[in-house]
């Protein structure tokens, strides 16, 4: 057991820290990435990261990464959150589709899609859920029909809850290619541009009033064979690899929570260190944030030793989503009557505007819903890890 970093890793951390200190925009200085203006500001930031090869450090160098290991990625994430650098507008691409492309993509697909994903020139959204296929994803009905004369497919149907969908450039989605096949079979994973003829986007305002996600209507949208990821009919298998990334390590690195926990302690100190139940809740939040970090190191070591992560990823998703809520609920409890203040209100005291905690709480509230609801994850844990009979 070795819980220390190598001198090379420490040097990598120093390099990341000093680059971020020089380049990261001041916290809160960009507009929300769920607005047209903020989306473009965040895209510029992605380009700045990519120019010095910080946007996707763990990817191979040929696609814009540094080819470093998972621990270096975790170190970078720690420094990124410590610097309170902007949210990653490209996250659906770089953290979800990217690893899936690296695993299942053809050499041509990797060369075509990964570099502009790394620079933010092409920002991706996810087209999985449908009005009648949410938790029951395999019930999806949007279809793709073969067009023999053009070597491709025509997509039709409706997708919904597409994060970043209001402004994204490309979409990765699941479609039914064999109408006679049962549920998980007969699905195919497609990549298509959002400005393709036949795509209509309807932004959906979220709890905060901004268009963080969107509904897509597809009407005979043409996709060439070259933009099928994995083979026709392999969609579920490829999608589960994306879902593994989503629930597992890559979507939510522990740095987000350890950094928020550190700020929570500062808030607690600034608010007079009240004793009683709130103190216990704050301790639980700190401990869970650190437990998630340690669990990530544990899993990363297993990956480095050549083990695969299976349904354990569902434990991760349950734990980080609940930790995020716990941290932010504790903060709002400390803020008391100020908890309702929005960023921009004149009131609000150091060390951070109360509205930032409220924003964080709204963001955290989505966690138990997206990436497979926590109820679905509990069922996965019960049936696949504990071996309980299927319901």
């Amino acid at each position: 057991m070795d819980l220390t970093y190598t001198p090379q890793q420490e040097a990598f951390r120093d390099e990341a820290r000093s680059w971020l200190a020089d380049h990261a925009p001041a916290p809160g200085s960009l507009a929300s990435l769920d607005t047209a203006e903020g989306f473009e500001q965040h895209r510029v930031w992605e380009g700045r990261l990519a120019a010095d090869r910080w946007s996707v450090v763990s990817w191979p160098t040929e696609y814009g990464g540094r080819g470093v290991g998972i621990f270096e990625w975790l170190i970078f994430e720690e420094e990124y959150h410590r610097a309170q650098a902007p949210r990653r507008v490209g996250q659906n691409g770089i953290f979800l589709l990217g690893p899936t492309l690296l695993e299942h993509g053809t050499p041509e697909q990797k060369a075509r899609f990964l570099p502009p994903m790394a620079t933010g020139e092409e920002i991706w959204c996810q087209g999985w859920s449908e009005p009648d296929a949410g938790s029951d994803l395999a019930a999806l009905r949007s279809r793709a029909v073969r067009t023999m004369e053009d070597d491709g497919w025509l997509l039709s149907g409706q997708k919904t809850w597409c994060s970043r969908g209001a402004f994204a450039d490309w979409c990765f989605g699941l479609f039914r290619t064999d109408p006679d096949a049962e549920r998980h079979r007969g699905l195919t994973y497609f990549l298509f541009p959002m400005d393709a003829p036949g795509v209509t986007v309807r932004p959906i305002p979220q709890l905060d009033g901004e268009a963080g996600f969107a509904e897509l209507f597809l009407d005979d949208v043409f996709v060439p064979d070259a933009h099928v990821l994995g083979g026709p009919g392999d969609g579920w298998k490829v999608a589960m690899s994306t879902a593994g990334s989503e629930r597992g390590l890559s979507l939510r690195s522990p740095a987000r929570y350890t950094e928020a926990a550190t700020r929570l302690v500062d808030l607690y100190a600034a608010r007079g260190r009240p004793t009683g139940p709130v103190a216990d809740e704050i301790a639980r939040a700190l401990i869970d944030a650190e437990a998630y970090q340690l669990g990530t190191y544990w899993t990363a070591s297993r990956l480095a030793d050549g083990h695969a992560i299976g349904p354990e990823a569902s434990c991760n998703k349950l734990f980080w989503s609940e930790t995020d809520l716990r941290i932010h609920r504790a903060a709002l409890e400390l803020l008391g009557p100020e908890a309702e203040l929005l960023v921009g209100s004149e009131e609000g005291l150091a060390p951070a505007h109360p509205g930032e905690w409220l924003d964080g709480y709204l963001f955290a509230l989505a966690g138990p819903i997206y990436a497979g609801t926590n109820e679905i994850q509990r069922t996965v844990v019960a049936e696949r890890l504990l071996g309980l009979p299927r319901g």
Partner: protein
Amino acid sequence: MRFAFTEQQLELRAAVRTVLEQQCTAGDLRALADLQRTGGHAHGDVGRSAARWAVLSELGAPGLLVPVEHGGLGLTEVDLVGVAEEAGRAGVPEPLFESGAMAAPVLVGAAALSAEGARAGAIAADALPAIASGELVSTLGGVEQTADGPVTTSHPAGPDGSVLTPRVAGAARAGLFVLAHHTGSAWQLHVVGADSTRVTPAPSIDPIRDLGTVEWTPGPGTLLVEGAHAATLVDDAVDRAALVTAAQLLGLADRLITLAVDYAKERRQFGRPIGSFQAVQHPLADVRVRLEFARPAAYRAADSVARGIGDRSEHVSMAKALASDAADLAARVALQVHGAIGYTWECDLHLFMKHAWSLSAAWGNGAVHRARVLAAALRRADD
């Protein structure tokens, strides 16, 4: 960075697990519980097995942390933690860790630290090989962890200078007691042979604990070390005790989940196994998740204690808070999944559930350790 056990560590753990599956059955624990229920006390060998102790001793378990020159394996807390998980899973009713991981390291530490090194060294040299071989059973008492740090539980018993030390685990079986005492101005650690004590059993809900009140008389003849050195050893001892207790709780939580899952697969209602209902599945999944994230925290704490790093006490507190909570939740959910049968004496569940309750509260419960973590975080924020 490699946060994983070595092959040897995994093999040691597997060997202990195999031995305990054969040598430490629910029937053994039941015999112990039945004895207490019928008014007997957990003296002697009822429910405890000389054969089991011999096999554990052969594996080197009691002397795992004892240096090689004193007859032990000379291993570290990182090697110990997996063994403790397996002992927790089985509910080992001998004071394996009280002896080898709580009392023995105090003797080793006293010999190394103390200005009275010669005397402490002689005591250590005398006792440690026998502890390591399993021939002598020792235990630690007189201190417990609080939010504000360790406090003594020993208090004067009468005008003759004798002292009462309550809630000492493994008291009926111990041949040698390492007992902490605070004079009001300084910590003292004493070593007392069983023949110089009077042990009164203190029945616990968990008969595995074998709690007793120890009456003894401190004097120059029993003193091992005092003052700053004793305080350091007390701090280290409560950390190590909380760590090894946390590790046992992880194994116990896993056992409780297994008992509940096995039952939920068998028991049928409404024409289906109850384990197919989400109302049963989801609470069990929640326990599994809490256990999944409690484990690495305990392993990290073991590494921090083994390396003696500055934050080790905070790391132990995180581990114990997480493990106590995971085991408490596992006990609660396992009972609910069992329903009425789980509430009976006849069902094995209570043997493990009660052990989870007692260890969850021992050496600082979750609330105590959470308060310690918050205090440490505030100290860091103030720097």
